């Protein structure tokens, strides 16, 4: 019941239908959540850190941990790509409100891309925008 005007959608990212973004550099993907997601969640108060060394699976919730929580609810992070979790952004874990301020500068985790062909399953900017618009109606 809000709309997507005024939200930021960077060009150089890939997107999921569950509102994660991935920045792909070589065989490393940096992952965060989109401004559409932070806007829906409002008041992000806690980031449950993903577990380094675990293997993420494309489109599946991170296991055993990995979620973004607002005052109201916990929302799982669905990994945009499969691969081993290499790094977690401790700054965001310590100060989750950074995700409200700038969800693109503040990534959540990095993974080593396990299967590059999975990148084709992700949205580019325009289809992702259309997907957000459709969710609004």
């Amino acid at each position, binding site marked *: 019941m809000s709309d997507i005007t005024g939200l930021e959608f960077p060009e150089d990212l890939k997107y999921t239908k569950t509102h994660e973004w991935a920045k792909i550099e070589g065989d490393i993907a940096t992952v965060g959540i989109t401004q559409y997601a932070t806007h829906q969640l409002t008041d992000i*108060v*806690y980031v449950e850190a993903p577990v380094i060394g675990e293997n993420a699976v494309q489109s599946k919730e991170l296991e*055993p941990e990995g979620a973004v929580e607002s*005052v*109201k609810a916990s929302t799982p992070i669905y990994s945009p790509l499969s691969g081993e979790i290499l790094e977690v952004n401790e700054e965001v874990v310590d100060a989750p409100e950074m995700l409200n301020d700038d969800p693109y500068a503040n990534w959540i985790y990095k993974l080593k891309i396990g299967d590059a062909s999975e990148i084709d399953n992700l949205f580019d900017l325009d289809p992702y925008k259309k997907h957000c618009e459709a969710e609004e109606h």
Partner: protein
Amino acid sequence: MAPKRTPLAEIHEEIGGNMVDFSGFYLPTHYTSITDEHETVRNAVGVFDVSHMGNFRIFGDTALDTVDNILTQDIKGMRMKQLKYTHFLNEEGQIVDDMIIAKLGDDHYFSVPNAAKIKLDWDHFNKYRKEGTVMENLSEDYAIIAVQGPKAVDVMRKATTNPCEMKFFNCDYMHFKDLNKTFLVWRSGYTGEDGFELMIPNEDAVAVWRSIFKHGEEFGIKPIGLGARDTLRLEKALLLSGQDFDFNRTSLETNVTWVVKWNHDFVGKEVLEKQKEDGIPAKFVAFKLNDRGIPRTGMEIFKDGKKVGIVTSGTMIPGKKIGFGLGYVDFDLKEYGTEIVIKIKSREVPAVIVNPRA
């Protein structure tokens, strides 16, 4: 089905409320942010549209007998214009709902049931209604505006001609200057703060809201959504009907056992008497986490590796970086300071039972 619009829906849209369908009502989760709204009510004054809640008027020669038999509270002992928080039970002793009831006359009562349970409560009251009691379901006819926070009294003094000398949990008719009309006002709320709940006929709701904001401006008044309503009540361990009890608990298991008055007969009393004799199995407590995480409804509570309870409500209290929850634990673990463990996914997070009023 489209959610019902309250008489204040046009205001929420005008001021940019984030509108959702909440138990069939079109209401705002927040206007600015839950954190900001939570702190506004704790420090200044905030205004809620709680028109989704019901309104029952109960009167007639036998009205007192009817309500005294349905409710766990001692209604016969009520003073004029007093309010009482009460439970009412089914014949198995389980809580059907909680509500506040006002005594407006010796044979005249007004009560506010929870939105999601209006129909259920109405049927329950009808089932036990005595001959000579008249009940009116006015839920569609009244808006309720809650003005809450330490500055609420200042706003009410400016908006009305009344000195506001009534004490908390009393009610009175107050004269609103801008409208030149008189409405029933309760000094009560669901935030743990001082506050007022205004019972306003639908057609006057928008004008009363605007008047309250005009007079409240100098006190930093803000509109408050459902999100902060939940965190405010949670922080003070006020029960949420349908979530902290849902036909699975008796009043003796809650943290408000004082709603049960043994000096009169009421529906479900025998079950409570037996439970008191046999031992109460569980107790409703508040706890805070001693490590990071947020407790959520349905998570399990452990002590020494054994499951001892369940979380019914949880959040991170806005402005404090502490996970906080409510739930039921084995009765002998209810004391403040008891250390427990909350299972949050794969983690076992240490927590401690606390006094939410401290």
